[in-house]
């Protein structure tokens, strides 16, 4: 089974890191195959950034995402550039406070930035909250795998904060699934 996941937001939100962590979780800890790609622009901060992950239980041949089944959108500009034409069966997680538009497909409003700012006190972990919600809603990787992958990807000394963020994301994601 091949899953294609597309992440988009603005530069500096950790969009690319999110995709790397997800790919790592799948490839190293779930022992699946994964490819992570990204679109590079000249700007290091701001702008619309995009990164994609393909996860599969067989070797991945064509490495580019063509028709994502899962979207994670964390900025309005990111939505406009990379999220306006999802397949009807696609699922989209959106940061409800930063994205004003809503897609035609199934979507989940995750207030990851607000949650990171208020409940966790550090806006920088918004992407990890979102990653937790993504895993809870879609199950593309196991929770143990994503926990391990987050731990080896974040700076030393921030493990606890990031774990908290991830688990908060699991809760937000679970709530979305339960209420449906």
């Amino acid at each position, binding site marked *: 089974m091949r899953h294609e996941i597309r992440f988009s937001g603005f530069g500096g939100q950790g969009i690319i890191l999110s995709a*790397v962590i997800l*790919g*790592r979780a799948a*490839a*190293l800890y779930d022992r699946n*195959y*994964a*490819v*992570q*790609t*990204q*679109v*590079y*622009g*000249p700007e290091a901060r701001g702008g619309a950034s995009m990164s994609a992950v393909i996860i599969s239980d067989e070797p*991945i*041949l*064509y*490495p*580019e995402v*063509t028709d994502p089944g899962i979207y994670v959108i964390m900025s309005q500009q990111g939505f406009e550039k990379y999220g306006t034409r999802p397949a009807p069966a696609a699922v989209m997680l959106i940061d409800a406070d930063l994205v004003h538009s809503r897609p035609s497909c199934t979507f989940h409003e995750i207030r990851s930035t607000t949650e990171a700012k208020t409940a966790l006190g550090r806006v920088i972990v918004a992407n990890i909250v979102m990653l937790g919600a993504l895993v809870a809603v879609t199950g593309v990787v196991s929770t143990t795998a994503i926990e391990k992958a987050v731990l080896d990807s974040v700076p030393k000394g921030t493990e606890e904060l990031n774990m908290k963020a991830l688990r908060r994301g699991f809760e937000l994601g679970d709530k979305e699934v339960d209420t449906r």
Partner: protein
Amino acid sequence: MSKIEFMQGNTACAEGALAAGCRFFGGYPITPSTEIAEHMARRLPKTDGVFVQMEDEIASIAAVIGASWTGARAMTATSGPGFSLMMENIGYAVITETPCVIVNIQRGGPSTGQPTMGAQGDMLQCRFGSHGDYSTIALSPSSVQEMYDLTAKAFNLADRFRVPVFVMSDEVTGHMRERITIPDRVEIVSRRPLEKGTLPFRGGDDGVPGFPEFGMGYGVHVTGLTHDERGYPEATDPHIHAALVQRLVSKVESARHDIADYEMVNPDAETVFVTYGPPTRTVKQVMHDHPGEGVGHLHLRIVWPFPERLLRLFTNAKTFIVPEMNMGQIAREVERHTDLPVISVPKLGGELHTPGELQKLLEARP
């Protein structure tokens, strides 16, 4: 114990080089190759190696050639604009028979072009870019695993044939992250030292002279001028020049079937894809999604010297299809070696051919 990693292509390239014993990296920052230099800057000082950021790409390849003469396995990595700057000294490496590895993470050209987008537009430049006649070896990875494996292999080829060897990758493979298996160790075939009392530029049976490492008492004079077998400048004797250039070309060309590294699928097919680098992945996807359509595939991991014999092994072939991220640079080479129709499938702009695009071509077959 081999281990599994989730690694970026550029990092895998650097790690492959380190595994092969690369001890010197001279480079200059350029997108999309910079991660290779950054990784070498972190790793080399911890492995008894030397990393130096030079003032430009001309200096980078010069430093690499200098380092190689001390016996070190040495490399640089760059992209289009830097590759263009290196051309003169690449010719110097060719005529002085200096083993070295040059990685080109290709991006859209000409000129500054598309720094963050993939391309395969330098495939002829790596073969013909420096002035004069010569022959080179160019490898083309299509996955992160091959970035590791082929970079390591490039050092062996450079040492065995005493030539600059090109790893012609691209932004797509360089920036992609994938699962790879890092082997315990990689095969290392070192350069053969020059036997004392032998002339330093006399080719052996394979046309390749032994290597007189600096500081070992050989007292070798290395010059970019046409030279005799002693290494002494002899730039006006037509016979010496012709013999030297013919040896430089034939030491590589006569070994081309031995050098060849490829995958062949469905040798009985009538329609045959010929690919190298990322379009290989698209073709594999199409063949996976539509099995039993009589489609064959020749995947070249080494493009130069071009192993033309392989085309003839597809005995039922009626058409060759060559998808490339350029305007048909290798399709032209395929055409040169077959009387059958060759369909070039160029793609410019930085994106890889999609499976749909190639599938459409197959459906259009009579």
